[in-house]
């Protein structure tokens, strides 16, 4: 009975719920914005790396490797605590968005590059032989086929970005985890933390399941 009162206290949860839901909203907007920015940046990086000026390709590889190697928490702390020394002062939300998008772009770029490279050479040659422009070749022929290939790994990446939003609580951003710790302090009871965990799982479990389903679906389609 003590255990239930400590971790699953209904009254405490009910009191904390508005705070938790506010936190969930912040987490969602941070996650979605970072995912979208990361996708745009990743697509640009993948195309630049594959088809951009060869002289610069080392630069894109360096970016992609660097931002996949650096821990997001370290990057976030640098953006929030170090950049003000050079006059760049970002809000917690902007700092977290910047750090998450920079890293997500690097991962997205690698996933998209692999997807584009999996498209047979003949598809490019047929497009070129027909006189299609570069943008039509990519937009009509290559990317629609690449997207099917990259949807499962891309969904995994989105899940990671969503999870990593929790790191933003370190720079005092009122995300789900931060709100939960606040509520826990307020109520002197850890139930809000359990509530936050439940919300994370509710949000991400369907996405995790979707990866497996999509993988099976596309494997069947290609046969």
């Amino acid at each position, binding site marked *: 009975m003590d255990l239930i009162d400590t971790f699953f206290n209904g009254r405490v949860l009910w009191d904390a719920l508005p705070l938790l839901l506010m936190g969930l909203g912040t987490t969602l907007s941070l996650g979605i914005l970072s995912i979208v920015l990361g996708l745009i940046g990743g697509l640009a990086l993948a195309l630049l790396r594959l088809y951009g000026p060869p002289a610069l390709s080392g630069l894109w590889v360096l970016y992609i490797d660097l931002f996949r190697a650096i821990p997001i928490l370290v990057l976030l702390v640098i953006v929030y605590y170090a950049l003000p020394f050079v006059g760049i002062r970002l809000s917690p939300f902007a700092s977290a968005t910047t750090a998450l998008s920079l890293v997500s772009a690097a991962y997205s770029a690698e996933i998209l590059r692999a997807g584009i490279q999996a498209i047979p050479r003949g598809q490019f040659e047929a497009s070129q032989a*027909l006189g299609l422009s570069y943008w039509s070749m990519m937009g*009509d022929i290559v990317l*629609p086929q690449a997207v099917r290939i990259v949807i499962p790994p891309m969904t995994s990446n989105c899940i990671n970005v969503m999870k990593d939003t929790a790191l933003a609580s370190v720079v005092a951003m009122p995300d789900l985890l931060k709100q939960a710790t606040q509520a826990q302090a307020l109520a002197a009871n850890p139930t809000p933390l359990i509530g936050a965990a439940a919300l994370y799982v509710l949000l991400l479990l369907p996405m995790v399941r979707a990866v497996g389903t999509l993988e099976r679906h596309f494997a069947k389609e290609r046969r």
Partner: protein
Amino acid sequence: MQTKNMQAGDIQAGETGRAASAAPAGRPIIAIRDLRKMYGSFCALSGINLDVAEGEVVVLLGPSGSGKSTLIRCINLLETYDSGTVTVDDVAVRPGPNLAAVRSEVGMVFQSFNLFPHMTVLRNVALAPIRVRKLAPKAAEERAMELLTRVGIAEQAGKFPGQLSGGQQQRVAIARALAMEPKILLFDEPTSALDPEMVGEVLDVMQSLARTGVTMVVVTHEMGFARRVADRVIFMERGQIVEEAKPDAFFSAPREERARAFLQAVLNH
């Protein structure tokens, strides 16, 4: 063979004189000058010179690795080369902003079809006219249906390429190339990836195309097709043109020893 040439002459008045000799007369629609290409230390093309006249059907023969496919792929610059020039309809084919426009005048049919697997058959044929020729989608699809009817697969228009047999896919690929109304059609071993029973349906379509007066350059191992349809046969070996002749002359009495050996090998197996 004689009848075939007279038909070609009927369609294209003034071309009959050319039929008398192996080399084409008049303005070439494809002009290749001193084309050279190395793959590392392997010489794929060593100084090819070739003119193809408007409306001519040229068949390239030769053992594998002789440079036939490389040569045909240089015409629309799917393959780059080390030196030399390729001119199509008086326009130099070279990298740059004009390349797509030149390529849109040169249709190509590949050994492996290379249809777009995520689009219906109809969309495969209609896409390039919509994107490149700026045709209205409706008009492009009507035209695509006409072409699919012409190659005998109108009833498959709504299917995806993966649901079609190899022969049907290759006929769609021909319709797709025709949709751009190209001046020149290139065929790179169009029947080599097909099951034997499907070779005939594709060759029939190609033969009927040849009668319409479109310029065709065909790389193939189908000797019967070369003999029936070609205006001129070109035999290549080791990146060089070894012999060119009218098909009846080439197949009955090849001048070069290497051509003779090749024909012996392919005809008596």
